[in-house]
């Protein structure tokens, strides 16, 4: 079968691209869920991933714990610390993904700080990640200006390059970033570190419209979404929403409880239900 050409990079199959194509076809919104890998341990991560898949999570974003997570707020810093304490390394995260892949095809993005890839060997990490069943990388501190060869290596491995657009990103940079990204664009809805907010930013609709003027890639909006109501509001102006700290916070609270997985999954399902009922924007 010849490869399907998708934008400027070609690949036989990428689960993220397939998932967004399917959502679009059905007129549904996507739910991207972030958790810290290895919090409280990697077996819990595996079980959560499978349970999330069951309730219709569209993309699982796994944070690889790093000693110095400078883009993260306190909730995710503590998750990284618990991950490190449970002995989680980048290699063990990849091994866990291999185990998840035995029974699940939920699209997986690794949220990772550049030093961890750099140390593993940049190209080797990309190849190992692809082999383990990862579908995309979001390297927090690797902007397009520093990513010479990165996009080519990722395309060769069949992985999506997830780039962030921030509220401080001017329009000419948006144009640059969307040209280099694949899979989806992650719009960070406010200045700041990751974390829950009482109120979501009111500039989201205008900004996603501005990004959309430059690209056909789906847009996922995150940073600060903490309940179904906010999820619904944000989903009205994007193809997908990202929820992280609110879920990580539940894991922090119930990490050692016997019912951790059903509890957290029930919350995730409530987010999914909230956005699936959103009417799609006019085509």
């Amino acid at each position, binding site marked *: 079968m010849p490869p399907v050409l998708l934008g400027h990079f070609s690949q036989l199959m990428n689960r993220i691209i397939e998932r967004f194509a399917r959502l679009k076809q059905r007129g549904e919104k996507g739910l991207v869920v972030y958790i810290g890998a290895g919090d409280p341990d990697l077996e819990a991560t595996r079980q959560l991933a499978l349970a999330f898949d069951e309730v219709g999570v569209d993309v699982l974003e796994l944070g690889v714990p*790093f000693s*110095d997570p400078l883009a993260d707020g306190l909730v995710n810093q503590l998750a990284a610390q618990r991950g490190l304490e449970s002995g989680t390394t980048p290699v063990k995260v990849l091994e866990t993904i291999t185990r998840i892949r035995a029974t699940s095809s939920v699209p997986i993005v690794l949220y990772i700080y550049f*030093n961890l890839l750099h140390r593993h060997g940049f190209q080797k990490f990309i190849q190992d990640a692809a082999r383990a069943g990862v579908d995309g990388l979001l390297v927090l501190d690797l902007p397009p*200006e520093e990513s010479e060869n990165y996009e080519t290596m990722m395309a060769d491995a069949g992985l999506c390059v997830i780039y962030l657009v921030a509220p*401080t990103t001017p329009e000419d940079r948006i144009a640059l970033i969307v040209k280099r990204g694949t899979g989806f664009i992650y719009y960070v809805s406010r*200045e700041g570190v990751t974390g829950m907010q009482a109120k979501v930013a009111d500039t989201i609709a205008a900004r996603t419209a501005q990004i959309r003027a430059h690209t056909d890639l789906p847009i996922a909006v995150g940073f600060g979404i903490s309940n179904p109501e906010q999820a619904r509001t944000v989903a009205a102006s994007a193809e997908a929403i990202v929820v992280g700290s609110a879920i990580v916070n539940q894991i922090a609270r119930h990490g050692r409880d016997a019912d951790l997985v059903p509890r957290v999954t029930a919350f995730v399902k409530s987010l999914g239900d909230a956005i699936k009922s959103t009417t799609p924007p006019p085509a």
Partner: protein
Amino acid sequence: MSVIASETLPDANGHFGPYGGRYVPETLMHPLQELEQEYFRSQHDPEFQRELEYYLREFCGRPTPLYFAERLTRELGGAKIYLKREDLLHTGAHKINNAIGQILLAKRMGKTRIIAETGAGQHGVATATVSAMFGLQCVIYMGAVDCERQALNVFRMKMLGAEVVSVKAGQKTLKEAVNEAMRDWVTNVRSTHYILGTAYGAHPYPLMVRNFQRVIGDEARRQILEQEERLPDLLIACVGGGSNAIGLFYPFLNDPAVRMVGVEAGGLGIEPEKHAARFQGGSLGVLQGTRSYILQDESGQIQLTHSVSAGLDYAAVGPEHAWLRDQSRVDYTYATDDRALEAFVKLARLEGIIPALESSHAVAEVIRRAPSMSPEELIIVNLSGRGDKDVEQAARKLGLQMPA
């Protein structure tokens, strides 16, 4: 030897060969580009330069003396030793050179709030000082362990009206203070300028901080030519992030006869988690915005560090130092806690100067090298700061008692 100092380094993206760059979250990319543009504009603005020179002279007390350390020279019995007296600057360390420069930039950019990280507290005090002077709100991030061991500087910052945030994450020292300052900056970037205190971090900081600190070397070069009518044979400075060292070295880089040594913190010895000598136990990595030598484990997690000196207790080194080391232009060595403490006492007793524990690492290297050099040879050591802040800690280590 090839020409090292050139207008082309760092390159347009802040790279010194394989080092440097700009590895930050997207939210900071455009603010850093704006900062870079404003910095370059200021460099061609005679009004900015006049203002900077005015404050360096009238407020900070520049030029600082290049002082012949006669008794230390005689005691060591070798090379002639000169001290570049940055300890005599207002606030007691070289950090004010950069703080003044950056706050003038912040004003040009219309920022109303200043943040900074600090290790030993000298950069925090310098930043709190210039913020008070220009009436800007100021928040300083400092590791909880450093707040305790440099308590005097915490009070100085508070006295100057700054808010001091004690950072309790990780090992509670300089690296965690930088993380927290970057989190603040990412959140408040529209109103806030981050006065990074060393020649580290994302472009343009390593370039900008070097250029604000090169006044040390420019003066020292002029002064030694006046006093000795020739260039020095050896320059010595301590290296944490590396701002005082690059400030002294930079104007001499194209003088091939001038050798240079950077002294890192050897702590308790070169074993994992016992030191902060990145060129001894470190490897190439990316931390806090730049690519350089860092202390990390096999997975890429940043390792714990130790030094008696809070200002050198840091897991990464400025990218230009990594590059100068590759060029074999600067040698890098280390001094242990014990040797730094010996140097601290020796300079106090022989010269009547109590150096900062950071600078004591450089003095320790003078003590090691000078005796085997000839009396015709000249050493300049950068006395980057004064040691008042360290007296209590040193007294404890040395077992000094209050009179009964």
